[in-house]
């Protein structure tokens, strides 16, 4: 039975930090059009701090400890809008993962669902408001359908979640923001994707690829 281990999660946070480092300028560019051009920096610094916090934990740390450390690290490095949202997401994932050294890979989609719920709870955004929820929500709903029908393979389920997030993020270009910084632009935000939804898709991809890898390693 393949497991997502604490070692595996450390690896995932390292890859997440690297991915956001590579995407910094593009995310800043997107956030410059409808926001204040700092989203790439927030995600780079946040994920770097999260990865460092997770790596610094003792070997005895559980999956919950890791997600909570990531939450605290991300929040204190960033603030802004993404800080509280991703801190709450990781704390929510910590509760879902529980104080275990490992969890069955097949349960990992519930972590995506937990993160999406945390973001919705903290930010109070609903789909269609041109926020990161428009990527997290489709991925979370796909995660739910996966756990109900056992016959799709984990890998296929995880891939479908990433696709759903991507489609959601692309959809934000056709939305008018009604929440957060871009809400003040009225229809001038049309035609531009929401940077938070784009970075959410990248994060969901790194998590899902990591969860899929855990399956093979198992």
């Amino acid at each position, binding site marked *: 039975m393949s497991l997502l281990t604490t070692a595996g999660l450390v690896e995932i946070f390292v890859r997440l930090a690297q991915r956001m480092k590579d995407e910094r300028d593009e995310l800043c560019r997107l956030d410059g059009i409808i926001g204040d051009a*700092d989203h790439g920096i927030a995600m780079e610094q946040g994920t770097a701090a999260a990865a460092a916090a997770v790596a610094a934990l003792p070997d005895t740390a559980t999956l919950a400890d890791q997600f909570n450390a990531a939450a605290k690290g991300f929040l204190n490095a960033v*603030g802004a809008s993404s800080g509280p949202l991703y801190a709450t997401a990781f704390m929510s994932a910590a509760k879902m993962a529980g104080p275990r050294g490992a969890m069955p890979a097949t349960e990992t989609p519930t972590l995506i669902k937990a993160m999406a719920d945390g973001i919705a709870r903290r930010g109070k955004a609903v789909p269609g408001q041109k926020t990161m929820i428009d990527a997290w929500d489709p991925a979370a709903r796909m995660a739910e359908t996966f756990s109900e029908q056992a016959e799709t393979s984990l890998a296929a389920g995880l891939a479908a979640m990433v696709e759903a997030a991507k489609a959601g993020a692309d959809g934000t270009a056709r939305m008018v923001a009604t929440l957060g910084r871009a809400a003040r632009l009225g229809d001038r935000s049309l035609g531009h994707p929401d940077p938070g939804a784009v970075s959410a898709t990248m994060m969901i991809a790194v998590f899902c690829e990591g969860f899929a890898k855990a399956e093979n390693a198992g």
Partner: protein
Amino acid sequence: MTPTQKIINDGNAAVDEMLVGILAAHPRHLTRSLAAPRAIIAREGPRPGKVALVIGGGSGHEPTFLGFVGKGLADAAAIGNVFASPPPQPAADAAMSAHGGAGVLFMYGNYAGDVMNFDMATELLAMDGIEARTVLTTDDIASAPKDRRSERRGVAGNVFIFKAAGAAADLMMPLDEVERVARRANDRTYTMGVALSACSLPQTRRPNFDLPAGEMEIGMGIHGEPGIRREALRGANSIVDEIMDAILGEMNAPAGDTVAVLVNSLGSTPLMELYIMFARVAERLDAAGLKIHASLVGPYCTSMEMAGASITIMHLDDELTRLIDHPCDCAMFQQGANK
């Protein structure tokens, strides 16, 4: 595309190096604890029985926010990364250090990030039995229609709104009163800006949006967020008239009333241009029968090196006049007793 010309070291260290410089330059005004490097506390002002006014927000707006920390105004400021709200911990630390047992009033601009972080700080303080209330500034009349005023951004009007609330707290008014004054000051403060260039974050040194030379963005926010309209740059009087039409139209103050005026640089626009704008603002106020009681001209709430300016008018009454005149001695803003 060569990076924007800045005198900095590593862009990622810009805010923390700035704070070291600020504390070195203003030792008699400001201090901080090692445990909370992003919470800057006034050396004079905080005292038992006084409501603690704690302000804060992203860096890059200097002298806003920590320039207004000092006796008679703000008791502490929580500092975030450039254009990013501070996380909950510095905000809670600032309140913990500055409060005198009479409650805390958080005041900051109305942005999603700030609201989430300061609300989390409020939760942390409640766990320690410290009551913290929040008044958001919403003076940017270009950022939402009048009937959705609560969705508006807080921009340069912060200067007058914080000043009124800080004076009320310094006069040892209770939390309910300081909050009432803060809301009233916010409701009677109107700001609109115009940007003539973009600005760059220290980490990327790339203009955060592209405003072609020869154009201006009317109603732009102080983080370079797009405004109402982008069009060819016009003369000073024409720009001031458009802004004053909007402000006077909404403020609708009866002739004979008095106002406070702030002509604020967004960063690189120099005093010469601000005073040329002020001349026209004074003309328009005179024509509307409104008397100027107090004036501030200069870079008070900026967006790093952005070119542009904003005009803020506060519609005064007796109470607000007394509070605006109240003396203060902050790191980057002093006002004597004899206004």
